[in-house]
């Protein structure tokens, strides 16, 4: 079939446009996924107990010796405190790190796939001397361990 140059351009644009639109529709939800996941309520300026209740839904925490939280006992600078958390609890789904006396108690929430070991390191900020609590969610139970860190210079402003 013979087609004029005008028809050809028109066709190309329509097909190309359809492709572009469909690819955009597929790609969009993937980006949106990472945006909607962030739990605003958990990271609100709340008291430690209120944040904890949101995490566990009122369920009691179980003290566990299987979680090791490595963090300095005395921190000179509250703006940068390295910590390492490791646990031998099987099938850990989530790991929470909280600082009791921070304006926002929850520092981070890690969501682990079975491909990842519970062996995490990061650096956190502390406003003042406080307990650092790490919670591991596995099999519907919340296990925790805590350590007190003495801060000689705060790192959360104010």
């Amino acid at each position, binding site marked *: 079939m013979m087609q004029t140059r005008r028809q050809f351009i028109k066709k190309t644009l329509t097909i190309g446009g359809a492709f572009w639109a469909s690819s955009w529709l597929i790609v969009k939800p993937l980006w949106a996924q990472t*945006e909607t996941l*962030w739990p605003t309520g958990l990271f609100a300026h709340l008291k430690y107990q209120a944040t904890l209740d949101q995490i566990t839904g009122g369920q009691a925490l179980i003290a566990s010796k299987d979680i090791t939280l490595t963090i300095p006992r005395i921190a000179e600078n509250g703006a940068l405190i390295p910590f390492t958390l490791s646990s031998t609890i099987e099938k850990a789904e989530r790991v929470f790190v909280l600082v009791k006396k921070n304006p926002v108690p929850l520092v981070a929430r890690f*969501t682990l796939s079975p*491909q990842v070991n519970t062996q*995490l*390191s*990061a*650096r956190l900020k502390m406003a003042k001397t406080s307990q650092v609590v790490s919670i591991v969610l596995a099999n519907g139970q919340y296990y925790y361990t805590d350590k007190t860190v003495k801060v000689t210079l705060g790192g*959360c402003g104010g």
Partner: protein
Amino acid sequence: MSSIKIRTKRQQGTTQIRTLIAHPMETGLNTDNQNQKTIAAHFIQTLTVRHNDEIILTTDMGSGISRNPYFSFEMKGGDVGDKITIQWSDNQGNRDSQDALIS
């Protein structure tokens, strides 16, 4: 220049993934010394780690993570040439992503 640096290290049966991200992580509680105004909160909210395009770990964080965040994770397995992708997005709508191959 990407804001993300990734280092991988293969160990016995596991792969250690370390990352360093350039980000101010402002809490929104600090004041600017020059004009006494509050510095707006600016922090990473979500960080995802992918192994060959499959999400293996997600981290949701507040401003309690230190400036220029450093993270270290441990993945089971991992072969030479596997792709590790790290992506972050912050509360001001910025985002960045970086790939690295396990060596």
